[in-house]
């Protein structure tokens, strides 16, 4: 059956302030109002076929206030960050950066608990926060087991041959994770940055 995805459905949450919110709060969002819907972004996307909407349509949905549909869209998660759309956009809209900003909002507001990208990002950030550096073994293991114990073991075993080849090639070490000596300093910086963002959000909500 043919469905018209952009048609309003009763169950969808609409927020007519959403577009303005994105313009003002998402990094690069101030240029979004210049979008003329030419489709260069979606046409340049290497993984457009794996996206439910693609950036062009997603931007129109933002303007239509389709907050929930936008923040649950897999377009923001399947972006490979190749920056084709960014360098080609005739209106110099930083498409990739806007998708990144939307991903951050989607996670913070709980729209994307099951997205693999969000799970991977959680694992990645854990490593950055605790060690100051990314440990690929730690991130991968954390990510696999975020799907549950059985799935974690399954995924781990499936990727064991690659891990063994990496170890053999000397590109996966077997000791403790590499760390920055100043990992605690970095955590203090991150905590301050989080505090600033929280403060700004609270100020924004009061306006």
């Amino acid at each position, binding site marked *: 059956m043919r469905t018209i995805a952009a048609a309003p459905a009763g169950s969808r949450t609409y927020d007519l302030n959403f577009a303005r919110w994105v313009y003002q709060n998402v990094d690069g969002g101030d240029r979004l109002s210049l979008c003329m819907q030419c489709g260069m972004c979606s046409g340049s996307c290497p993984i457009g076929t794996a996206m439910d909407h693609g950036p062009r349509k997603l931007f129109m949905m933002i303007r239509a206030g389709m907050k929930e549909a936008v923040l649950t869209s897999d377009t923001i998660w399947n972006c490979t960050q190749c*920056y084709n759309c960014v360098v080609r956009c005739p209106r110099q809209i930083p498409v990739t950066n806007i998708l990144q900003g939307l991903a951050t909002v989607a996670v913070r507001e709980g729209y994307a608990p099951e997205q693999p990208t969000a799970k991977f990002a959680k694992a990645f950030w854990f490593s950055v926060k605790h060690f100051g550096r990314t440990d690929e073994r730690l991130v991968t293991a954390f990510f696999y087991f975020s799907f549950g114990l059985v799935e974690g073991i399954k995924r781990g075993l499936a990727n064991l041959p690659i891990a063994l080849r990496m170890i053999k090639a000397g590109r996966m070490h077997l000791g403790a994770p590499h760390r920055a000596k100043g990992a605690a300093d970095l955590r203090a910086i991150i905590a301050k940055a989080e505090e600033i963002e929280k403060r700004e959000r609270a100020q924004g909500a009061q306006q």
Partner: protein
Amino acid sequence: MSEPKKYTYYPGCSSQASATHLDQSLRAVAPKLGIELEEIDDWNCCGASVGHVEGGTLPQTALSGRNLAKARKQGTSDVLTACAACYLNTHGVNEKIKNDVRTRKRVNESLGAVDLNYEGDLNVRHACEVLVNDVGLEKIKGQVKNPLTGLKVAGYVGCQTVRPFAATDTGGNYDTYDQPEFLDNFVKACGAEAVEYDPKTSCCGGSVSVYSPDKTLHLIKKIVQAAVDAGADVIATPCPLCQQNVEMYQSAINKEFGTNFNIPVVFYSQLMAVAFGMDAKKDAALDQNMIKPLKLVEMARKTAG
């Protein structure tokens, strides 16, 4: 030889894991090209392409802020990085701190938690841009003692090495976004043959390939297939994630698509190390490629013997 030029070097996390062979070979060839690398003291992760998702935009920005503040403490030399994602983040944040007062203020308020500060007076540059603009092809050619004659190389640039900064003033205007030539020029300078290769800047799926390869295997297949069709012996790339994805997923592609791929994927700096007559293992780190670049190893042996 003229005085070496000093750069503050940001190796990035992959230099200690999946791309040790990029770091090792770059450090090996750098002195020959008049590049002195001084590592940023106790650098941290740049957040790559997912840090913002869980961490938030400003915390992600502050990661580069700390690295830049630490680099600035070591002097005013240009910051050099060879990793595409490190470059994207560090260069991007640096320009933002330079040009956007609000970002500068917020990053410095964050850095203030540990008494660090950075006002945006450094330049952040990609190793390839430095090779093009500061070193130059003639100097590279001048170091070649073991020309890689007969080696056919598919130059695969990938995305973030050139996009979105290669054709900007701050990015050194060193090449184009769609048909960059610098990598083929490096290949030719080493005496190898740069085969006609169309998907130079096709995307390998980046980090999406790391966690959801089911969505991106077809992208990598295109990249490998074109190299094989062009008769290449090896694929050469500047990007750590491209190197890893294009190399490690060939077996999965073979399984999925019934192909028979087994083509080595090396870094341009590994080619240079061999062409400069340096050691196959210690300098070119050829033992660290999962798919052994046999022809290149053979060429290196010839010199060593």
